[in-house]
């Protein structure tokens, strides 16, 4: 390889320096907007049956379907997706579905690359990164398909429809509605002299129960949560009556009195009452999940689907599930917990839109939901389908939908989560006081909101 001469190197560095100087003179950058508008739900008389889509030539159309894996039940493809899609293909012999699990760690990369290359999956499972693809023009609006097929949107949770609506258009079909619940270890409850069937209902009881469990031993804790778990840590302020944002997402309100009180309560669990497992421990392997699974923690909060993972990883764990204990705010905010929607989208570049829509419609039918989501342990985004009425833990995820608060599905939400996680972690590690952490957090989040507005 030819060596770079000194002159060439200096020229190269000079260009770099020049760029930096010019950059300093440039104007302020702008970021993309987050446009959400109330959905217009068309009133259709009946729930749409899965449409037929037999191509005139009789040939078999192959659809690609990508989804991030949910391992709670084990091998999703083998146990849940495969059998469900077999049923679909039996019902629609002219459509073949090639299902692929895309690891969460490279989810955005893989989709971005596929969209950029013009070869995206026909149908994809979308979560919070969804708005990015909508804004980039990669996702097909479903309004026309919905209207043509007579699909009855009323059967879907209205809030879930709002999540997938941008500029008045529906870009995906809500499918999963996941939410967090309180989980407790019944055995530790019993050992601590508590009724194993009765979880704490208020925050005062929560502290009281946690103290009793903590008294069981030096390595037993009343409560645990991951310090960077932005979902589980994100609701203390809401339970105390505060809100993260104003209605139009132009201002962060996390430095409010309610938020400071809520997060002070959280900090007290670590430092005043010392019932929470130190964040320095849960921040490393095996994490809050591992310690709870291994019977070292009395209570935690997780998405209800995690119950299936816990049961698989430790079949001896006696698990209880309930709504999150109520904070000072009125319900539903007083029991606020993480909630998220997973939706099914069709790529604009799909060559088989009609068949893809047939699949999407079919996947939200009660039978298909039972076959796939019932297998996983996820609640559905339909307001009339309850899959886990016989399961005391999973059913809480379904009946507690009103307590699930969704994060804004915007392009800046990942940046917001990173800021949120950093400051809440600082509180839990004892590196910052609650009020100063929330003040700094608010300022930084307001910066990104300002960028979003300027775009």
């Amino acid at each position, binding site marked *: 390889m030819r060596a770079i001469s*000194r002159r060439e*190197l200096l020229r*190269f*560095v000079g260009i*770099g*320096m020049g*760029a*930096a100087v*010019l*950059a*300093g*003179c*440039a*104007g*302020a*950058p*702008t*970021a*993309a907007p987050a446009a959400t508008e109330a959905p217009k739900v068309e009133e259709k008389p009946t729930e749409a049956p899965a449409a037929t889509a037999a191509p005139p030539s009789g040939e078999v159309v192959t659809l690609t379907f990508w989804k991030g894996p949910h391992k709670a039940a084990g091998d999703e493809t083998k146990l849940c997706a495969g059998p469900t899609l077999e049923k679909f293909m039996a019902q629609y012999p002219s459509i073949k579905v090639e299902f692929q699990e895309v690891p969460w760690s490279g989810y*955005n*990369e893989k*989709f*971005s*690359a596929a*969209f*950029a290359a013009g070869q995206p999956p026909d149908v994809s499972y979308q979560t919070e*990164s969804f708005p*990015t*693809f909508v*804004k*980039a*023009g*990669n996702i097909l609006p479903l309004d026309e398909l919905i209207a043509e097929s007579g699909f009855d949107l009323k059967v879907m949770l209205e809030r879930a429809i709002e999540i997938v609506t941008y500029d008045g258009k529906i870009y995906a079909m809500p499918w999963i509605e996941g939410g967090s619940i309180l989980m407790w270890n019944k055995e530790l409850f019993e050992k601590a002299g508590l009724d194993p069937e009765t979880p704490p209902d208020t925050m005062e009881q929560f502290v009281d129960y946690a103290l009793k469990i903590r008294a069981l031993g030096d*390595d037993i804790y009343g409560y645990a949560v991951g*310090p*960077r778990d932005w979902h589980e840590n994100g609701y203390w302020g809401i339970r105390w009556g505060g809100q993260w944002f104003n209605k139009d997402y132009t201002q962060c309100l996390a430095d409010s009195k309610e938020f400071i009180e809520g997060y002070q309560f959280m900090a007290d669990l670590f430092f005043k009452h010392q019932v929470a497992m130190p*964040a*320095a*421990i849960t*921040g*490393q*392997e*095996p994490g809050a999940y591992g310690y709870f699974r291994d019977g070292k923690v009395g209570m935690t909060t997780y998405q209800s689907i995690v119950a299936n993972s816990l049961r698989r990883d430790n079949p001896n764990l006696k698990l209880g599930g309930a709504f999150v204990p109520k904070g000072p705010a009125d319900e539903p905010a007083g029991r606020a917990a993480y909630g998220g929607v997973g939706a099914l989208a069709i790529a604009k570049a799909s060559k088989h839109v009609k068949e893809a829509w047939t699949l999407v419609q079919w996947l939200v039918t009660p039978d298909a939901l039972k076959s796939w989501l019932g297998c996983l342990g996820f609640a559905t985004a339909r307001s009339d389908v309850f899959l886990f009425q016989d399961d005391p833990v999973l059913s809480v995820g379904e009946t507690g939908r009103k307590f699930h608060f969704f994060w804004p599905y915007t*392009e*800046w939400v*990942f*940046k917001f989560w*990173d*800021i949120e*996680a*950093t400051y809440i*972690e*600082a509180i839990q*590690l004892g*590196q910052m006081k609650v009020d100063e952490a929330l003040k700094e957090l608010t300022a*930084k989040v307001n*910066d*990104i909101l300002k960028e979003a507005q300027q775009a």
Partner: protein
Amino acid sequence: MDATARVEVAEAVRPSSRVARRRVSRTAVRRNVVAYLFLLPFFVLFVTFTAIPFVSALWLSLQKGLLAGPKTFVGFRNFAYLPHDTITRTVLLNTVKYVATIVPIAVFSALGLAFLITNRYVRGRDFFRAVVYFPILAAPAAAAQIWSYILAPRFGLLSYALSALGLGDIYFLSNPRLALLSIALIEWWRGIGFHVILFIASMIGIPQELKEAARIDGANAWQVATKVTIPLMRPVILFSVVMGTIWAFQLFDTVFVLTNGGPMNSTATIVWYIYNYAFRYSQLGLAAAMGVVLLCIIAPISYVQMRVLGREIEYA
């Protein structure tokens, strides 16, 4: 042949016309065509996987837009934004701290290990050479995962050993003051083999006569090492330092797997930041701009290193 005669010969053989020059040029090309053909695969790969992405990255740094969508030209706005971003300063500082820690430690310790392994009194030199080199063969993400269990509080191997010594739990990866140092320790373990093998190869290549001459002149082992061996290894040490610095600036895998930039951004590095902007925040222009900044940091540092360490060695 004196100078005048040389000039005359040169004048005589120099083609006097364009036609003649072209003829010489064609002949030269024909003579070298095989060499060019051998070089062609390299150039194709270089242009495809290095030159085009490099130019694309520079172009992207001047654009704004999502990863998979339309982009607009914004000039140097992305560069102007970087100083205002929430953690730009933190990632730059972390990366510089990391480089300043890992490079000298890696190079000096590798030198020490190389001397030990090549020592004629050491038995099983090949075994030690293999042991030192093995970690490089481990996939970075897999190695990081293994270390996450070694460093885990309470049940991790290292924590267990420290507890046995009465030191109690040390939160290697969740203490903001220790996390970057712990990452440096893991990266040292992973990368040390490269430096050691280079140094051993270089040491073996130094003529024994030079060392023996020094010994005859009364030099002890330390003096032979510092006055003869190390100065003669300077080009290899230079290569080691430059490559070590470049790799250190590119730290990503271990951070991504072990801490994801935490706790409290204490392990957030430039490449981690680039990844986040490109794939999590979907702001490709900003990611590319940060990549250009990284280039502007690495290039002058490497240049200075080459100037300082790459001077000609003269022996009296």
